[in-house]
């Protein structure tokens, strides 16, 4: 498992196992408005600007070319062949297990542990996108090494890159919440963890996740080994949400250093380039991730989804 697929295995996959019915409806329904791209030699998707007017044509292409990787655009175009006449783009978040800034496994590529951590992160992001931002129409796709969260709520499909980047920063907790508020009569300096709503709440959740997943080897900006050790020694307090005590034990100035470092670390939870690029192409759900021999799979139930069971092509089980 996780070994690259051979050319013959790709052929077997697309001829025998893959079917156009496995491509999710949200792509099939807009197939003629999307740009498709392919990587035939494992060197990146250089065969781009492909258009298929019907699902049948896409099916024939994949079955005959058996590409190393297949992609389709998050954007809808009037003229997808020229990427012209942009109509709208899905709002997308890409969580790659390999690039999660805090991983407890320490593996070089991806493994069951970091894929599970990616799943935990994805669940948290989806909750925020649902509860705070009111976005409900989404599809979760296991990409082969992580997850793509693809939102199709009409309200957000035409927002620009600047606003997409603000959404991203909001859901990952990329900025320390402001420290001073003013009710008109007096200034008020509540720490983020006593505010149980809005962005401070999201930030508190993300900081908690990060601290609980730090290891001795973790590298945080401006946090030395001594401070890291103190954070690790006190983090059990956060499991009981005893933030005040945690902050006191660490010391308020050092606490500030820790949350500043985690805020910048959080930016790495999601690949920002993917979110802000309105014309990005993403791996086509149901296609083969040949580098790791896994299927890019739409996930219906994140709790039950197990990539090592549900996204493994049959040819892998038959390998000697």
């Amino acid at each position, binding site marked *: 498992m996780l070994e690259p697929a051979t050319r013959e295995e790709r052929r077997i996959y697309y001829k025998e196992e893959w079917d156009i019915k496995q491509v999710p409806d949200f792509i099939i329904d807009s197939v003629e408005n999307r740009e498709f791209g392919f990587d035939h030699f494992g060197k990146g998707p250089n065969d781009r600007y492909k258009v298929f007017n019907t699902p049948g044509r896409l099916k024939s292409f994949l079955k005959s070319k058996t590409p190393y990787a297949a992609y389709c655009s998050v954007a809808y175009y009037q003229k997808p062949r020229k*990427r*012209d*006449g*942009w109509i709208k783009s899905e709002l997308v978040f890409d969580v790659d297990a390999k690039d999660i800034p805090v991983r407890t496994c320490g593996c070089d590529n991806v493994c069951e542990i970091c894929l599970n951590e990616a799943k935990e992160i994805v669940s948290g992001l989806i909750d925020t996108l649902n*509860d*705070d*931002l*009111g*976005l409900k129409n989404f599809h979760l796709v296991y990409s082969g090494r992580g997850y793509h969260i693809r939102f199709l709520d009409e*309200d*957000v499909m035409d*927002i*620009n*890159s*600047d*606003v997409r980047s*603000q*959404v991203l*920063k*909001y859901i990952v907790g990329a*900025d320390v*919440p*402001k420290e001073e*508020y*003013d*009710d*008109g009569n007096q200034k*008020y300096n*509540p720490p983020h963890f*006593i*505010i*149980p*709503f*809005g*962005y401070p709440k999201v930030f508190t959740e993300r900081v908690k996740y990060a601290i609980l997943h730090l290891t001795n080897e973790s590298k945080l900006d401006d946090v030395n080994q001594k401070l890291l050790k103190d954070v690790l020694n006190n983090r059990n307090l956060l499991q009981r949400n005893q933030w005040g005590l945690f902050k006191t034990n660490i010391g308020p100035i050092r606490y500030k250093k820790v949350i500043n470092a985690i805020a910048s670390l959080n930016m790495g939870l999601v690949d920002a380039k993917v979110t802000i*690029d*309105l*014309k990005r192409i993403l791996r086509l759900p149901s296609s083969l991730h040949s580098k790791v021999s896994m299927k890019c799979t739409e996930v219906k139930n994140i709790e039950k989804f197990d990539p090592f069971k549900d996204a493994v092509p049959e040819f892998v089980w038959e390998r000697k």
Partner: protein
Amino acid sequence: MISMSFINPLSDEGKEMVKQEGIDLERIFDENEQIINIVNSINSKEKAVNPIIPQSYFDLVIKRVEWYIERKNDPKNVKNKFDFLFHPDITKLDVIAFYILCQAIGIKFGSTSRESRAIAELHGEIIENRLKYLQETDKLEIIDKIMNDFIIQDRIKWTQLVDLLSSKKISLQSLVLKNGEVILDREDFIENFAHVIKNQRPERMYNVFIGKKIKELIMIKMIMQNTEDYIESVHERANIIEPNPKLLKIANEVSEVLSREIRYHGSFSGPGGAKASPLNHDLFPPCIKLALEGIKSGGRNEVIVLFLTPFLSYARLNPSVFSNNNTLKVSDVDPDLKITKNEILPMIYDAADKCSPPLFDDQPQEKININAKLGFGMHDDFSIQHEGETKWYTPMSCDKVKMNMPSLCKPDEVCKRLKEINPLFYYIDRKYR
């Protein structure tokens, strides 16, 4: 007490005012004693210097637009002579002028026109300034009243505030959100969050976290949107009935005022000031000259989109942006966008083409990003109707150039003399000094 229609002429109160007063289109251009008397009285209360006294409704409409234009060009000197626009005593007359203005623009231009956008923006700025002059208690009361009206009619979703978010006037993080709705109402706040707030009074938390400034900005945005919607509804009706020639005349006059040449009053003004004028390649700083030759290694996108696009557009259209601290849009200086399309974009595209590999070959989406950095949103087409969806990026400072694209920074004697602050200063210094 301040009338709601002083801030929102489209409120029920404002509509009722128009119904009662009536707009006699035949007399729009006639001298109107009521206007003259009220403005005179305001001017004497405010001790206005060189006051303007509109003589008719037509005049009042035009003065609103002139204030908007003069304020952009010369923000320091405009306040006093237009004081009457910001005094509550003008409310009734101003509501009628507002409706005349919107109807004229609606009939002639519709809601996707530059004129319509300018009128909505103009009204937004009038509101912002009127609120500044109100007593704090009056201001809070009126914002609450207007916002309650909006919230009762419809919940406000964060996605309706994309313009405000794009312009960075508010940040998503500063909003309190629940299920996509922006929580602004006290009752809503308490209903949604009282059960999770511990050791604090929810009412106090509401006062602290639902900021007055946010409410104010959202209210202004909603009124601006309603103004554009109203103009559109007039435009739709105008397609079925014959347009009134007097309103058409006003529309033409307003359009003419909006198109007046922008005048600059920058501190960089040597003889003649730093005006919009054709670019002179020979006077560019070394970093810009290098960027125009195309980038052969990494960082093509940043150089073309973030560095070159703002520099060339500001150097050509608004060179004194930093000294005037103005907030012009591209179309304020280049109303038909011909300069941008024929002079600026070709230079940017040419530099992109000289990159290795040519930027648009593998990253055609960067054309959209260039449009965005000029303030025209994330669209393929470079069109006036998208202007304002994004911010017109100002030229990058020398510090940022050094940090992000160090290979471009080869300071010469002029750079050193100017203390390497911003490449635009180099160009202005050589061109105008």
